[in-house]
């Protein structure tokens, strides 16, 4: 379909020409293989994309597998990466991708499709108008750590060289900026010292504020492999939740949220008490230890332990293991997303410095990046306070160097607004136009109600994205459709400084264009007004030409890649930086000479004082809400959310509570609770979780108002980020997206509506998008896809009363159960009861239970099993939780690759255990038998045998069954 829609040949950046230019010319054979990089987390796994030539003569991605030669993954892929090809399927694209530019002439009115030329004219004219009226700092660019390095470089230059504003920041501000400022403060540069290979050499792996089993699964599997190879390897996990990663650790420190600095200081104090510090290293290679020592000395250990909610014995064991090493620490948002994130980072690096656990194999701080190219963005300086190649905007020498390099008179000295500040300025009216690229601020920034107010206030919102249906889209005035994974050309840098190529395996969807090409076109239009007659600042012809300019900025810098080029990446595969001229390979590990990037070459101890959470609990809001990831979803789910199967493991939104808290609230799983914080209140279904400590609740960060919402005081609820404060770290400016204080009450809403329906292939996403508009008609509503082969939608709403008849009818019609469809129907309007069941050939293919919905349990089982019903069908409409006949029970799909249900797994474990002789079931034998049972499950049921993401859960099930059988 996109073939017919291709742009006229005279327009720059048409897909066919870009594809040809980048070497992805359709090959002669039917199947073509392209090496590229996964677009999800910062592990940066290599993929081999297979594409086939369609009847239209265009390549179409058909499958994806791990690249066995890629140093990040050696062929492995996680549950997300292994389904990349499915997310690129045409029927998904048709429903979710933007295929043409669109203009909205008035907020709230529908999009109008446009040509590229008209959309560019519209956007650039309004942009220029605002620039001319209010000056360069009245505009802003809010971009993304998912952009490629080349995209990033161009946007940065556009802002700082052409527009003359430093108002360019990225969603990496929400992700890595505390790690950046921590590295810079402690080590002198934003350089990740360690590498993935250090897992193989480590004696201790210290994981804090990260759940790599879910968020970085391939790296986690590498850790698992390292443990197998080295049984004495000690894995320590520090987390407020007993995550899958924590569950498998040798030592788990379930700390109270926000107490990380207390913990690191306490560990240092204990190291000192036991004389485990490396005084030689401290003396020779560091500075500032005296100041730190004073802080540590003044700290009461008992106070620190109480702040952490930990006992001395556990922390002592952690401190000893850390000091013993070699110690590799891995961390992510648990440290970074905090108003004291920089302190948490420097306090952790203090431990490495104090024990000499840096600059040697198996040791060092290795921050895990959440995004595929957060590192690349840092390298090109695509943030409000940075300049290319790790230069500082605040440094006049750096500004001057870059101004000369770019051939402009000066780089503005005024620092730009960082992400949170940027939206505050938009709300305040000082920033009037914002160009949002490849990110979804209406989901991801804290204090969402303020973000929505800001977006509504902005005079001009340009949205550039591959997906047209993000939460931000309704606020935009112009939409530029961008190419996406599998269509783009460029490079990314992963968590361990490895630069990998991203390559196109199929043409861009519809009329979408590469992000850099859109920026280029826009820049050239602005240039004709802002720099009339002058030579262009943007003389690029392709991604590589941009990259070469980026490379030139790195010469002599810590990240010098002067010796690298696309040809080497092509020939030798991914390379770590630095890779200076003359090098034959990248550098695995930094600071092996113990000379750090500070002026005196010494690493710096920082001496932060522990600070309270930005939104501390009190009597009114006694509980703490934390947020994190689901195993099979990524970020705002604009890509993973297009796959119904990605929802199988965590099928619907929920808030996790421990058993004790749920008991105290009188809530059972699935019942709604009202979560109220200082900024917002939202209803969510409760889920009982053994991972939670009492007083701690958890919501996955993915559940935006695109999936779950409800009426709120000033509109509708926007998901977990409604709760988090706009408080930012004073140095890194990263907001505290991890902790908020809340109270939880049971919410008993008398009117419930549960529906589930199998939909025509290729329609579920479009229906889901249309259903979203009805969320705010209810106190609570969610809509999520489900299913593996045949895709369906689950709809749930609850309220104090039934909605208006026409609203209910419209939703039923969208669910394929409208008035004209043959159904079983039951209605008792007085009681708000309305139940519909759709049958096809004696099988339930849809149901809608409004009013009393207890029958949802067995109707859903009937629907998902597809079994023929064995009782009079009118009883399908009978109320109550007990089925009127035989219904085979169904359970959650635990292994998504092989679609294996949890009950099948537990049944098989049970039979395997009971087949063992009694002696073999003894507790002492459990550890020996468990791997054997796991292997049986893998070979017999197929679960855990592919991506391995479910293995931690499988092991837990085996362990629990073994425990129960004794």
């Amino acid at each position, binding site marked *: 379909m996109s073939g017919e829609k291709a742009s006229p040949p005279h327009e720059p950046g048409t897909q066919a020409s870009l594809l040809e230019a980048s070497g992805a010319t359709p090959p002669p054979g039917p199947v073509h293989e392209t090496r590229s990089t996964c677009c999800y987390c910062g592990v940066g796994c290599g993929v081999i994309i297979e594409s086939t030539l369609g009847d239209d003569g265009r390549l179409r991605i058909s499958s994806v597998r791990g690249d066995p030669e890629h140093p990040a993954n050696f062929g492995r892929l996680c549950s997300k990466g292994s389904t990349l090809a499915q997310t690129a399927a045409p029927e998904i694209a048709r429903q979710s991708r933007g295929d043409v530019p669109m203009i909205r002439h008035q907020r709230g009115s529908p999009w109008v499709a446009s040509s590229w030329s008209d959309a560019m004219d519209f956007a650039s004219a309004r942009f220029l108008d605002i620039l001319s009226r209010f000056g360069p700092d009245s505009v802003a660019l809010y971009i993304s750590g998912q952009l490629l390095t080349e995209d990033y470089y161009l946007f940065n230059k556009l802002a700082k060289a052409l527009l003359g504003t430093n108002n360019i920041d990225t969603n990496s501000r929400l992700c890595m900026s505390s790690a950046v400022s921590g590295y810079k403060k402690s080590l002198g540069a934003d350089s990740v010292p360690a590498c993935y290979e250090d897992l193989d050499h480590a004696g201790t792996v210290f994981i804090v504020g990260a759940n790599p089993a879910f968020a970085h699964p391939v790296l986690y599997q590498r850790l698992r492999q390292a443990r197998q190879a080295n049984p004495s390897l000690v894995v320590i996990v520090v987390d407020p939740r007993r995550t899958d990663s924590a569950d498998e650790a040798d030592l788990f420190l379930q700390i109270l949220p926000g107490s990380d600095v207390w913990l690191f200081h306490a560990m240092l104090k204990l190291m000192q008490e036991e004389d485990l510090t490396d005084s030689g290293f401290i003396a020779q290679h560091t500075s500032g230890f005296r100041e730190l020592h004073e802080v540590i000395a003044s700290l009461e250990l008992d106070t620190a332990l109480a702040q952490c909610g930990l006992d001395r014995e556990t922390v002592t064991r952690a401190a000893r293991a850390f000091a013993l090493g070699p110690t590799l620490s891995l961390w992510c948002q648990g440290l970074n997303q905090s108003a004291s994130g920089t302190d948490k980072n420097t306090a952790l690096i203090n431990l490495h410095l104090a024990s000499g656990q840096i600059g040697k194999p198996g040791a060092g701080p290795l921050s895990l990046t959440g995004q595929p190219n957060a590192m690349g963005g840092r390298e090109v300086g695509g943030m409000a306070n940075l300049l290319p190649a790790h230069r500082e905007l605040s440094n006049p020498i750096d500004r001057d160097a870059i101004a000369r390099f770019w051939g402009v008179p000066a780089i503005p000295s005024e620092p730009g607004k960082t992400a949170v500040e940027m939206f505050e300025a938009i709300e305040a009216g000082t920033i009037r136009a914002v160009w949002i690229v490849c990110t979804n601020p209406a989901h991801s920034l804290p204090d969402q109600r303020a973000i929505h107010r800001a977006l509504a206030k902005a005079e001009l919102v340009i949205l550039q994205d591959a997906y047209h249906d993000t939460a931000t889209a309704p606020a935009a005035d112009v939409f530029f459709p961008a190419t996406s994974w599998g269509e783009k050309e460029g490079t990314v840098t992963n968590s361990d400084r490895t630069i990998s190529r991203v390559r196109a395996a199929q043409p861009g969807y519809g009329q979408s264009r590469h992000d850099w090409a859109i920026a280029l076109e826009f820049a050239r239009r602005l240039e004709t007004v802002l720099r009339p007659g002058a030579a262009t600042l943007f003389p690029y012809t392709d991604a590589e030409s941009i990259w070469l300019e980026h490379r030139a900025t790195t010469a002599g810098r810590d990240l010098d890649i002067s010796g690298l080029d696309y040809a080497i990446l092509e020939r030798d595969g991914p390379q770590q930086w630095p890779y200076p001229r003359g090098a034959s390979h990248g550098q695995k590990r930094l600071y092996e000479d113990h000379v750090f990037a500070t002026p005196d070459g010494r690493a710096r101890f920082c001496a932060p004082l522990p600070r309270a959470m930005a939104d501390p609990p009190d009597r009114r809001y006694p509980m703490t809400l934390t947020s994190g990831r689901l195993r099979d979803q990524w970020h705002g789910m604009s890509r993973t959310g297009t796959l119904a199967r990605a929802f199988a493991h965590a099928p619907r939104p929920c808030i996790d509570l421990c058993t004790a808290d749920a008991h105290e609230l009188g809530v059972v799983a699935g019942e709604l609770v009202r979560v109220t914080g200082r900024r917002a209140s939202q209803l969510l279904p409760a889920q009982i979780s053994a991972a939670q400590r009492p007083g701690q609740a958890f919501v996955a960060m993915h559940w935006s108002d695109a999936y779950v919402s409800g009426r709120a005081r000033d509109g509708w609820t926007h998901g977990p980020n409604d709760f988090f404060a706009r408080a930012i770290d004073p140095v890194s400016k990263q907001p505290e997206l991890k902790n908020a204080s809340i109270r939880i009450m049971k919410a008993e809403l008398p009117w419930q509506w549960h529906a589930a329906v199998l939909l025509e292939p290729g329609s579920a996403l479009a229906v889901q998008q249309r259903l979203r508009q009805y969320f705010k008609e209810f106190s609570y509503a969610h809509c999520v896809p489900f299913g593996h082969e045949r895709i369906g939608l689950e709809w749930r709403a609850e309220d104090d009363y039934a909605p208006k008849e026409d609203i209910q009818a419209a939703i039923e019609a969208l669910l394929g159960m409208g008035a004209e469809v043959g159904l*079983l129907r*039951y*209605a*008792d309007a007085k009681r708000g*009861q309305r139940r519909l069941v759709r*049958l096809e050939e004696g099988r339930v293919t849809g149901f809608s239970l409004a009013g009393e919905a207890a029958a949802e349990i067995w109707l859903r089982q009937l629907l998902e099993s597809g079994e023929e019903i064995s009782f009079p069908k009118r009883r399908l409409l009978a*109320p109550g939780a007990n089925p*009127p006949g035989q219904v085979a029970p169904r359970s959650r799909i635990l292994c998504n690759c092989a679609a294996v249900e949890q009950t099948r797994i537990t049944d098989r474990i049970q039979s395997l255990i009971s087949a063992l002789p009694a002696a073999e079931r003894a507790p002492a034998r459990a550890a020996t038998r468990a791997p054997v049972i796991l292997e049986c499950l893998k070979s017999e049921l197929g679960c855990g045998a592919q991506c391995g993401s479910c293995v931690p859960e499988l092991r837990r099930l085996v362990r629990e069954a073994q425990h129960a059988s004794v």
Partner: protein
Amino acid sequence: MSRPKLVVVGNGMAGVRTLEELLKRAPERYAITVFGSEPHPNYNRILLSPVLAGERTLEDIVLNDFAWYQDHAIELRTGCRVDAIDRSRRIIRDATGATMHYDRLLLATGSLPIMLPIPGRELEGVLAYRDIADTQAMLEASSRYRHAVVIGGGLLGLEAACGLTLRGMQVTVVHLAGWLMERQLDETAGTLLRQSLEERGLAFRLAAKTTALEPAQSGRVGAVRLASGEAIAADLVVMAIGIRPNTALAEAAGLPCRQGVVVDDTLQTYDPRIYAVGECANHRGQAYGLVAPLFEQARVCADHLAGLGRLHYRGSVLATKLKVTGIDVFSAGHFQADPGTEEILFSDDETEIYRKLVVREDKLIGACLYGDTDLGPWYQELIRLGVDISALRDVMMFDDPGQTSKAVAAPQSAVPAPAST
């Protein structure tokens, strides 16, 4: 000592059923004479439709053959109308002029079909649908003619139309209301019924008024003219637009009549020696045209004729069942929604099942079922008993009484004794 004389005027289902009930209670109490205007013994009028449809024979539908009268020493005078009652002398006079004394008189004269007062109603081939003679005339016409029009899309009209269709005629039903059986069904059920009957080959003109019956050249009826101007070919016209109680005899005798002979809760008229049951009677302002109320009346009336005086009749819940094979329609009570009532609806589009229950103040007051009427009698009972159904409300659409009695409280035992005991 001679027994008192009971004279029954009307040899139909109501009169003879009363006798049966009476004989059970007091077999020797009366000397009984029954007058019947038709030449037949008591037959089941309700089953005329299956006879017309060819599913039963006339013999099949006889309820009490001549031997039964003999066995019970009942004098039966068939083909003999009663023309007058002399209440002061307690005698009746029959069509032959003969008189007979009575101690008790039971009026069971039934009803008469209403004939439209339109031109052509006297033409040959224009019938009502009331008795064996009408049925035989329809059967005869169906064997000789092609086109039939039934005026009236009520219960009786539709049964006639279906029967004639089965007999090979092309039948059009002309109906004044917007949907069929509007007094028994709501619009949804009426529409389902029409669709189902159309599939069987019937044609319909709804919201259609008949203005005239037009003769063919033969002099027999040839067409039905509608107010719209349309003429529908008709070799046979059956008028089934309703019935009116046959009260001519009672009125002439000075008994108060208002849409039927007015009776009290013992089925006694204003004359203590005279009772009335069945379609000719009006109890509490209601004349019933269905069989179930007649049987209830018969029981109460017999109780009093037997001198027991225990039972009272307090009216019946009307329930209708259309006797067309393969189409189950049931309605009972007050089935149209109005302010103060609540509806509970069930439908299965695939099998064309539709049910509506009407509730007022936690009592079931009406039911309208189409397609599957198994639960009809139970609903009728719930309506009649007037019990609080709140405990049953959520399940009553799905469960039959047997299952409910297991699942909930048995409705039969959970409620007060029937009102008529």
